[in-house]
């Protein structure tokens, strides 16, 4: 089945770049910003339309072919999980674009900025829609290239260049290793289609080539999703990027890498083959990231380490290997995209006004910027997993799933880490509410648009914390599409 109109939003970078060029030429102020915001809102609407279309189909899977039938032509296979990831990406993209309107006001080269931002969202959607390794790899590289450029966007300072170069080298090595892994899968299965490769490889015993492919996939995806031995780019790249980009990177990009890891591992291997390795990586990731986060003085750098720790919690669900555990993982992906996106955006508002990222120099900012600080307060509570925020719900399910699979030690390590993480969140909260220091006197609240975005996200965080049923049922469907409905996923391609 070929259809075009619902996927038109993936071409939004072209529309944004054209609007930008026209706006520069005929001097229409803010044309590109308005077009970028309209296009990102249109993306959310289109994903909602796609969701309805998928609900209407019999198998809840849509196939979009590009050039020929699935074995040879590239194809997109959109199931509930894909649409779940796409929804998270486009929603956060909308928030980040609206926020950029005020945040990036004084920067130059904004046409490039908005084009790259919408290309980043489109490529993340493409990665989650991909139905074969070929499409997947193309969008994966597109995601990488746009994010390397966006991290190094403020190229007149040394920080972004250094962080961007580090990220580029590590990310490129990761994605080239991924290509090697794809080559190995192609060599063993004779196809790059997910469904067909799954049919050939899933039930084979673990040969030396299959285990080599497993290691290569874990390393290749692990670089982008910042699993601990491969995490060193993240604490540099996140603080140095502009704040909306930090929110995109931390909120959805590393989770997209996790989506890739989960999808490929579950399609090609039995869960029992990789469970232990992922559990060990989860423990390493949580412990190291939380300890390092305690040492940070820079607020955005601390949030970046906290992202790595949250990635550790998400890996618990992957290592559980059941659809309940994966439901927790994907619920946490959505919740983390709201929480960490909001954390970076409200911290960005504070940094934007106070012109410093040092926590010591931000003492008492809560009395000068009350609304932004309240948002930061809520999101830090959510990241720590306090009840009444959505962070609590997903963490509870994650730890519960680990206990259900007989890995109680993993849940205990997770809970202890969750307690440890409150150590550095509480330090920031204490900084927010203490007496203002001299250098901050006379600060005003952030511009209304930035304030509006953070308040809207805070509302969603509390709303989904108190009323989590719709997201949970949505995430359950997404996780079931990956584990329980895998035969259906294969049957759609190979009747």
């Amino acid at each position, binding site marked *: 089945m070929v259809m075009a109109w619902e996927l038109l939003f993936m071409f939004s970078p072209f529309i944004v770049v054209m609007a930008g060029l026209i706006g520069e030429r005929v001097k229409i102020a803010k044309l590109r910003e308005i077009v970028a915001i309209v296009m990102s809102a249109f993306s959310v609407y289109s994903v909602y339309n796609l969701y309805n279309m998928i609900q209407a189909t019999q198998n809840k899977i849509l196939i979009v072919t590009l050039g020929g039938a699935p074995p*040879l032509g590239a194809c997109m296979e959109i199931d509930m999980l894909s649409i779940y990831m796409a929804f998270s990406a486009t929603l956060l993209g909308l928030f980040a674009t609206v926020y950029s309107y005020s945040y990036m006001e004084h920067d130059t080269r904004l046409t490039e900025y908005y084009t790259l931002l919408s290309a980043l969202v489109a490529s993340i959607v493409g990665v989650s829609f991909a139905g074969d390794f*070929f499409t997947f*790899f*193309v969008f994966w*590289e597109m995601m*990488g*290239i746009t994010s*390397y*450029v966006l991290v*190094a966007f403020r*190229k007149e*300072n*040394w*920080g972004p*260049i*250094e*962080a*961007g*170069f*580090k990220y*580029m*080298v590590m990310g*490129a*090595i990761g*994605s*080239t*290793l991924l*290509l*090697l892994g*794809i*080559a*190995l899968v*192609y*060599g063993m299965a*004779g*196809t*790059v289609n997910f469904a067909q490769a799954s049919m050939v490889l899933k039930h084979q015993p673990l040969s030396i080539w299959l285990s080599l492919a497993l290691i290569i996939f874990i390393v290749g995806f692990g670089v982008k999703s910042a699993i601990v031995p491969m995490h060193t780019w993240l*604490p*540099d790249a996140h603080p*140095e990027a502009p704040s909306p980009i930090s929110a995109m990177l931390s909120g959805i990009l590393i989770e997209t890498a996790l989506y890739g890891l989960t999808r490929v591992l579950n399609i090609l291997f039995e869960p029992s083959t990789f469970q232990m390795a992922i559990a060990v990586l989860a423990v390493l990731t949580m412990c190291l990231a939380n300890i*390092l986060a305690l*040492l*940070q003085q820079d607020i955005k*750098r601390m949030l970046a380490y906290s992202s790595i720790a949250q990635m550790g919690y998400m890996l618990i669900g992957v290592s559980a290997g059941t659809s309940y555990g994966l439901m927790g993982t994907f619920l946490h992906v959505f919740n983390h995209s709201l929480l960490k996106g909001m954390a970076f955006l409200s911290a960005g508002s504070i940094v934007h006004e106070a012109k410093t990222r040092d926590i010591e120099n931000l003492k008492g900012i809560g009395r000068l910027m009350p609304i932004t600080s309240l948002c930061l307060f809520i999101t830090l509570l959510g990241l720590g997993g306090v009840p009444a925020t959505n962070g609590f719900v997903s963490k509870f399910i994650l730890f519960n799933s680990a206990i259900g699979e007989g890995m109680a030690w993993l849940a205990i390590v997770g809970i202890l880490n969750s307690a440890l993480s409150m150590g550095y969140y509480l330090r920031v909260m204490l900084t927010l509410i203490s007496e203002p220091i001299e250098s901050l006197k006379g600060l005003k609240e952030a511009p209304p648009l930035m304030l509006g975005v953070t308040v809207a996200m805070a509302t969603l965080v509390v709303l989904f914390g108190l009323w989590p049923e719709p997201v949970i049922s949505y995430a359950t469907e997404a996780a079931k599409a990956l584990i329980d409905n895998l035969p259906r996923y294969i049957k759609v391609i190979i009747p």
Partner: protein
Amino acid sequence: MADEAIFLGTVFVLVSIGLYCATQKNMIRILLGIEMILNAGNLALVFFASRYSSMGFVDPLGQSLVFMSIVLGGCVISVGLALIVNAYKQFKTTNVRKLRRLRW
């Protein structure tokens, strides 16, 4: 069988050289290392495509993947070169050991 040993051995050697180059000091050399790992992947794809031949034609799937990955590799390398130019403007060196201001 001899073919497999030669090609996969070359792939392995290319990956090792690429990973070794990526740990070097010079930025250009790091980029060349990345390109080498990429080409190891491409070589593996071409070799596997030749194994799935039918009626004397190799499998077009692997070959088309190689074309695409060469293009994508070119994009990544050009972004990397642009970053190196900017890094040279900032730091006046192409030695990555000097890019050490971001710690912890």
